[in-house]
């Protein structure tokens, strides 16, 4: 127990730097019995569906409904649903450069998974799909929100970087200006100094002349 407490204190994803598993909400600390099937006959499955974005809302809803129907027909019970919205793809799939993701968690009979997989494969509106059995005690993370948060943090980091750069540039400019000002003042100092001396000389000469006149007295 003590060890666990220490670990939770240590695990601060926002503060740690270098490549780190920030969003993996599945560590020893977060061991919660959140995804345990209700009976022994069923298992929890995670289904990720990718469908093209070039659909109007009605068609989109139709695709999602079809997907959900496949699982409800197979006797599945929905545990969670997460719509990611439009996202860029790393490579074009069937001509689509962007796609919409939907992540479901369903509780269903393991014998019917193959059937649903086949149906999803045949379905027209679905580009890719993946059915995965999450490990024991897996905690559902809403990656749609996590991703947006990540994007925001990235933006702020970039902004900070650009700000720093600007500040550095301005500092450089200021330093340059200072140096130039110094140079000019030095030059000015260097230039009028002999003049003063010459003036002093003339004054001294004048004094000497005056002294001559004093001598005469």
């Amino acid at each position, binding site marked *: 127990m003590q060890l666990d407490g220490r*670990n939770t204190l*240590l*695990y601060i*994803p926002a503060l740690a730097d*270098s*490549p*780190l*598993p*920030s*969003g*993996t909400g*599945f*560590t*020893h*600390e977060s061991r919660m019995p959140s995804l345990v099937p209700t009976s022994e006959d069923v298992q929890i499955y995670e289904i*990720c569906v*990718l469908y093209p974005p070039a659909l109007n809302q009605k068609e989109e809803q139709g695709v999602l409904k079809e997907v959900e129907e496949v699982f409800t027909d197979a006797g599945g019970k929905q545990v969670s649903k997460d719509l990611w919205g439009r*996202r860029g*793809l*790393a*490579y074009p*799939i069937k001509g689509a450069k962007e*796609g919409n*993701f939907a*992540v479901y968690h369903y509780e269903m009979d393991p014998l019917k998974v193959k059937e649903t997989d086949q149906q999803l494969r045949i379905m027209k509106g679905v*580009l*890719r799909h*993946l059915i*995965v059995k*999450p*490990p024991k005690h*897996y905690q559902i*993370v809403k*990656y749609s929100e*996590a*991703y947006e948060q*990540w994007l925001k943090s990235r933006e702020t980091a970039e902004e900070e970087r650009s700000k720093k750069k600007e500040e550095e540039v301005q500092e450089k400019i200021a330093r340059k200006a200072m140096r130039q000002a110094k140079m000019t003042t030095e030059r000015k100092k260097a230039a009028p100094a002999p003049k003063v001396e010459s003036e002093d000389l003339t004054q001294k000469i004048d004094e000497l002349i005056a002294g001559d006149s004093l001598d005469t007295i």
Partner: protein
Amino acid sequence: MASAPHHHHQKQQQRRSDPRLKRCPFCEHNTLYIDYKDYPTLKPYTDYFGNTRARYYTGVCLKHQKMLRTAIERARFMGMLAYRK
């Protein structure tokens, strides 16, 4: 004669860091499972060409490298990560 082996030793040290200093970033957080949907954590473990970074460079332990590999492969299939740049 005495300086030659010393020089050799220095060269070796320059080439690679002490393997005992490497620490698995996943082990530090006691990660039990790496999710393929978690793009921000997967991305730094792929290089410019889209290949998985070798354990040698990232310091990930074998257990977590295996998890990472399956996660990256799944993410590639779903179009979240690139197979090849």
